C-alpha cells in the first residue's frame, strides 16, 4: 500500500491529540511505519492547530504538504477551508459542522466565510459533513466529538474495525472509554 497521510485540523483546545494517538496506535498494530507530528506552543491558545499522521511501509518526512493528504479531518469549518489545499484531488474531507469564530470575526473586523461546504465541494467530490457535536451529545458526552469524527474516518481506511477497537481501548482512559466507544461506533456507521 502507498503511504497514507491524514491531517487533523481544528482550534486549540478541541482535543485533536487523542484522535491522532489512536490513529497512530491502530497503524502500529498493522505493523506500518508511523509518524505523528504536531506543534504545540502559541497555537495552543485558541489558535489554528494541525496534526499530521502518516503511515505506510516507510515514512521519512513527518509533514503532510499541499496536495498530499488522503484524508483531512476538520474539527471546525473555517479550519477545513484553511487547510483544503493540503488535500489530494481525490482525497476525503470530513467536516464537523461547527463554527468557532476567530478573533477578527469576534471583533467585527472580518466576516466568517459563508457557504464553506458549497465552496469546497466545487473542487473536491469526496466530502462528508456532519454535526459531530450532536452525535456525541446523543452518545452521552459532548466532548467525544473527536471519537465521532475518528469513527467516520476509520470506516474509510484499510485498517480493520477490530484494530480500531483495540487502539481505542488502549488509548482512552477507563472512565471515558464507554462514551468514546459509543461515539466512535456512531461515526463509523454514519456514512
Amino acid at each position, binding site marked *: 500500500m502507498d503511504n497514507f497521510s491524514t491531517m487533523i485540523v481544528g*482550534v486549540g483546545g478541541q482535543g485533536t491529540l487523542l484522535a491522532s494517538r489512536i490513529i497512530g496506535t491502530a497503524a502500529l498494530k498493522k505493523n506500518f511505519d508511523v509518524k505523528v507530528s504536531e506543534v*504545540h506552543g502559541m497555537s495552543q491558545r485558541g489558535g489554528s492547530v494541525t496534526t499530521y499522521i502518516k503511515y505506510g511501509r516507510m515514512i521519512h*518526512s513527518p509533514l503532510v504538504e*499541499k*496536495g498530499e493528504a488522503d484524508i483531512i479531518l476538520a474539527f471546525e469549518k473555517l479550519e477545513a477551508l484553511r487547510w483544503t*489545499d493540503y488535500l489530494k484531488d481525490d482525497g476525503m474531507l470530513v467536516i464537523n459542522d461547527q463554527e468557532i469564530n476567530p478573533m477578527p*470575526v469576534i*471583533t467585527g473586523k472580518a466576516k466568517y466565510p459563508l457557504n464553506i461546504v458549497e*465552496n469546497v465541494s466545487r*473542487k473536491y467530490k469526496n466530502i462528508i459533513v456532519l454535526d459531530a457535536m450532536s452525535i456525541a451529545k446523543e452518545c452521552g458526552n459532548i466532548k467525544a466529538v473527536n471519537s465521532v469524527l475518528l469513527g467516520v474516518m476509520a470506516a474509510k481506511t484499510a485498517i480493520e474495525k477490530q484494530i480500531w477497537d483495540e487502539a481505542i481501548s488502549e488509548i482512552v482512559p477507563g472512565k471515558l472509554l464507554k462514551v468514546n466507544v459509543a461515539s466512535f461506533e456512531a461515526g463509523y456507521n454514519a456514512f
Partner: protein
Amino acid sequence: EWSPNEKVALEVTLGASIAGARALCSMKHVGLNVAADPLFTAAYTGVNGGLVLAVADDPGMHSSQNEQDSRYYALAAKVPMLEPADSQECLDYVKQAYGISERFDCPVIVRLTTRVAHSQSIVQTGEKADYQLKNYLKDLTKYVMLPANARGRHLAVEKRMAALKEYSETVNLNSIEWGSKKIGVITSGIAYQYAKEALGGVSFLKIGMVHPLPENLIASFASEVETLYVIEELEPFLENQIKKNGIKVLGKELLPVTGELSAQLIKEKILGVKAEDRETLAVNIPVRPPVMCPGCPHRGLFYVLGKLQLNVSGDIGCYTLGALPPNEAMDSCICMGASIGMAHGMAKARGEQFGQKTVAVLGDSTFIHSGITGLIDVVYNKGTTTVIILDNSTTGMTGHQHNPATGYTIKGEVTKQVDLVKLAEAVGVERVSIADPFDIAELEKIVKEETAAAEPSVIISQSPCALLKDVKPGKALKINPEKCKKCRRCLAIGCPAIVDQGDFMEVNEAMCAGCGLCTKVCNFKALETAAGEKAGDING
C-alpha cells in the same frame, strides 16, 4: 527536577556529573544562550559521569522569538554534537552520547529541531542497564578553573577535539547510503528525512555527529558523486566547513537560511520539479491568531495598561498576547526576564516623565527565571521602574509546569514556595502591592499610584490561570438585549466569548468562563448570568 533557568540546570547537571553520576539537562535554543556560560567552561573541565545536554532548535519559529542555529555552540564551545533524525535515533544517540562523553571526558550536546522533538515515531526500547556511581575524586587541576589550570585544560580540549575528529571518521553515526552517483547529498537530522522523501534513490552521506565533522569521509564521498549538495535547515553550518576544505558543493545558493525545509521545497530547488500550481480555496479567509483564553487573569491587566496608554516593556509567556489587538498593550518583547532591565534602560534614556509612563510586565516563572536580577539592578541603580508580576500560579504557555513560585516540584510534591512579596522587599523595593486583575477599577488605581511614585515598585497581579484543574468556571453570562446599547465597549477586553453579530452582541455560552470581567466595562449592566441575576461581583 525543574530548574529556575537553563544556566542553573546545566550547573546542576555538571555537579551531578563531577560527583560521579550520568546526568542530562534539556532546553530550547534560546535557553542554551542562558546556559552558555557554564557550557564553555564545562568543555574545559570535562566530566566524571557522562553529561548530555539536549537542545531543541525551532526553525520556522513555531513558538520562539528567534531561529538561531545551535550547532554553532558546539563549534564555539568545542564540544561534540549529535543530531538524531527521528524518535528511535533520539534514544540511540543519547545512549551513544553517554559513551562518547565518558570516553572523551567532555559534555555532549544532542541537538533536535521542532519536527523531531514534536513528532513521534516507532521506537524499539532496550534493557535498562545498571550504572554504578563513579568515585568522586578531588582533582583541582581539572575542576578548579583558575587561569593556571584552565590553560592546561585548554590544551586538553584541543587534544580531545583532534581525537574526536578521528573518531568521527569511522563512527556509525555517520553513514553512506549509496544510490545514483549523479547526485550526492550530505545532510543531517530532519533535513535527511525531507531529502530522502524528495530525492529517494540518490546517494546520501547522513551525518549523525555534526561536530566535529568527518573530513576524510566527506572528501571521499564527494569524490564519488557528480554533483554534491548539502541539505540543511537554517545556517550553512556543514556547508561552510566542507567548502573550507576546497570541496565543491551546492547549498545555500539554492536553499533558504530562514524557516523550515520540506520535501516539496527540496524537489523544487534541487530537481527543479515544482509542485503543480493548485487552485487555492483558502483566499481572503480570516486568520486565527492565538488569544488569551476566556477567564484569563491577564486580560484585565492589559485592558488597564491599554487604557492608561503606558509604555509596556514585555516578556515571554502567554501574556505576550497582550501585544495583539484590541489592547496592543506591549511595546517590546525580547527574551526571558528582559522586560525589567529594558524598562529601566528606557527610563534612564528618556528621563523621569517617560519613566513614570513605563512599566515592565512579566509572569511569575519568568520573573524567577531571570527577572529578579533585573529588579535588583533597578533598585541598585536608583531606578523608579514599576514591575508588574503576573502571578497565575503556574507556567501557563508551556503547559502548566510547576516553578519555584508555585510551591510544588516537578513530581507534584509540596516544597517551599518563593514569597514574591518578601523577595521584592528583600532586594530593596519598598512599594510592593498585590492586586486582583479582575477588579479593574482598583487595579487601575494601583497602577497609576505606583507608576507615579519616584521609587521602584512591584505590583503582583494575582489570580490563577483559568485552565488550571482546580479553577472552576463561573456561570456563563448572557447579554440582555433590552439593556445592551450596542456600544461595543465590551469588545475592548478582547474576550473570545463575546461575539459581535453585527445587529446584536452575543456571549458564546459554551466558551464563557463566567469570570465577569466584561461586566466591569459595561456601562449599562447588560451582561447578566443565565438566571437573570446581576453579575457584577462574580470575582469579588
